């Protein structure tokens, strides 16, 4: 499934990054979202988007549209 489809407080593991936009993909990788990393969706903003993920001991806020290429599996 895709990261953007995951519910709040769900823990998941990144399986693949399929983002085609090279710049965006680099930024996703640089921020530590690499295949194998575990993350949790902590919350969404009041208007439903963006959402906050926790990974590698820190918090990152993300738009749903930027997360569409991130393939995850629930753990």
């Amino acid at each position, binding site marked *: 499934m895709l990261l953007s489809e995951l519910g709040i407080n769900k823990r998941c593991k990144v399986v*693949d*990054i399929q983002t085609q936009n*090279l*710049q*965006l*993909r*680099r*930024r*996703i*990788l*640089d*921020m*530590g979202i*690499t*295949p*194998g*990393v575990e993350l949790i969706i*902590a*919350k*969404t*903003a*009041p*208007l*439903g*988007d*963006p959402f*906050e993920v926790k990974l*590698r*001991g*820190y*918090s*990152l*806020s*993300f*738009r749903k*549209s*930027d997360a569409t290429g991130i393939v995850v599996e629930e753990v």
Partner: protein
Amino acid sequence: MKIALIGNPNCGKTTLYNTLTNSNAHVGNFPGVTVEKREAKVKYKDVVYDVVDLPGIYSLSPFSQEEVISRNYILEEDVDVILNVVDVSNLERNLYLTTQLLEIGKKMIIALNFYDVLEAREDEIDIKELESRLGCKVIPISAKKNMGIQNIVDAVSSEVINKKHSVIENPNILQAVEHIRDNIRSKGNHAPDFFNCIKILEEDKVALKYLKANFRDVDTKELDRIVKNTNEKVNGSWDIVIASHRYEVIEKILKIAYIKETREEVTISDKIDKVLTHKIWALPLFFLAMYGVFAITFGAFGSWFADGAAYLLDDVFTVAFENFLVNNNASDWVISLFIGGIIPGVGMVLTFLPQILILFFFIAILEDVGYMARAAFIMDKTLRGVGLSGKAFVPMIMGFGCSVPAIMATRTLNSERDRRLAIILTPFMSCGARLPIYSMFAMYFFTGNETIVIYSMYLIGVVVALICGFILKKTVLKDTDSAFILELPPYRKPTVKNVYTKLAETAGGYMKKAGGILLIASILVWISQYFTPLLQIAESQQESIMGVVGGVIAPIFAPLGFGTWQASVSLITGFVAKEVVVSTMSILYTPESLVAAFTPLSAFSFMVFTLLYMPCIVAFSTIKKEMGTWKWTWFTVAFQTTVAWVVAFLVYNIGGLFF
């Protein structure tokens, strides 16, 4: 000797820079406060060190403009020592950049910042282990608490060198790098460095350009083929493989070197966030908090200061000074210059300093605590609706202070289009210089309702910016989908030092403005109300330079409710600095004639116009610098002034139906 401070955004580089060089550069608890390099020289044991603070970056494959500045700087300038600042509360991700910096091959020192926070949590880092794994000197510090700074100074001046050139151990990557090296070498070159070869695998265009410029016969097609061929061995593109591997290595190192106490996962930041970014309460809380700030600044508390200052100026200082001049037989024109020109022109603006300081005190605390990134988080969707990225929120908030740094802060935005849009809209955020105008009008026309009237100015600025964003998005600056990936820093206690520094800087800047540009403007305004455009003595103010210039453009403002020459000319002099509007008016009007010249509605309309029309000359030149072209600069100014006219027109004419 040149030392470059480099690290992730918001890891405390500027705080360390301030400590090392005894400076007072602006810091804040959100990513992107520093957007330009700054440097200072310090002398230690007879050696002069050139310390350079660079904008924060997450990696060496840079995204936005300020990240390009940092990357180019450490790659191209002769940096002798890289001082890599690392936030220990976020080690894994911070060390990712470290693994890349090592590959540049310069002497490097790692400063583990916020080490006091880590110790307070009873965690521990095996420094020796970390040093041997990374192959360079590691020093625990707390830039805030001045801990470990001497060790840095010692390490910088010592002769130690790095023991490793990379932490990469994946044989596939190493082999691919060798292939690229061999290819370049086969053309009769010496071997290129590890850093650029890795970048070639990641298809980095800057690295390719570098190789082409510095090595003979570099063949792009051949390199491409090597990248493709070697890539077949690994699962995924090179950039994914390399990034994953870096993080794997870091995880492995930290498993050994980081000794962690077991504890629950809910942090204090989480608890605060539960309230401040709550699904329903976040937005009302945000606006309520802002209202609270304005109520304190302009309500009873702030007014007490403003009234006190006004009393001191009008009833104590002016009276005493006039007596002093009269007693010393000063000529009439000298008395008039001071009592009718300089003192009202400069003094009126100065009386609002207390309120500005109160407002900036709160903004400084919000910045220091880490709320700004949350504000961007909760506002992103609204901003996106009008074509802005949530990241544009940071420059917008800074715009409440001063448009100049705010316009520069748009460099953190990723695309040219986003930057242009943010530059056009940022001046709509009401800056501190406009505050005296509101305060003056609120004092004369809205007694008892100061808070709500001034708060509404700020809200009108925001709403107009949103509407204009929407219009521009549909017309000249078509939407491109821009990414919004923003780090939410942990909340931190505001420090007295940071807040004090910011207030001192604001007050200092204000006084300097008052003693410089406001003083000169006041004298010029005072003189030009007595002379005609042909430099003869004017028989009435109406015939003076002020009167004639104001009279010519006054009809433009008549539909807005303030078609007097005094109001019109003060808008022109306000181009020098917005406070000059107040200076000019207090010279050209007496309190009584000012009250007679406006109705509350036309006063409100005038406030709206000064809020929105073209910014001051310093902001104007900043816009030119950041936009790069005159075309966009003039567009920006024309757009803002048109918007100001239209909104003030609507306010005056629609308001006229009700009041």
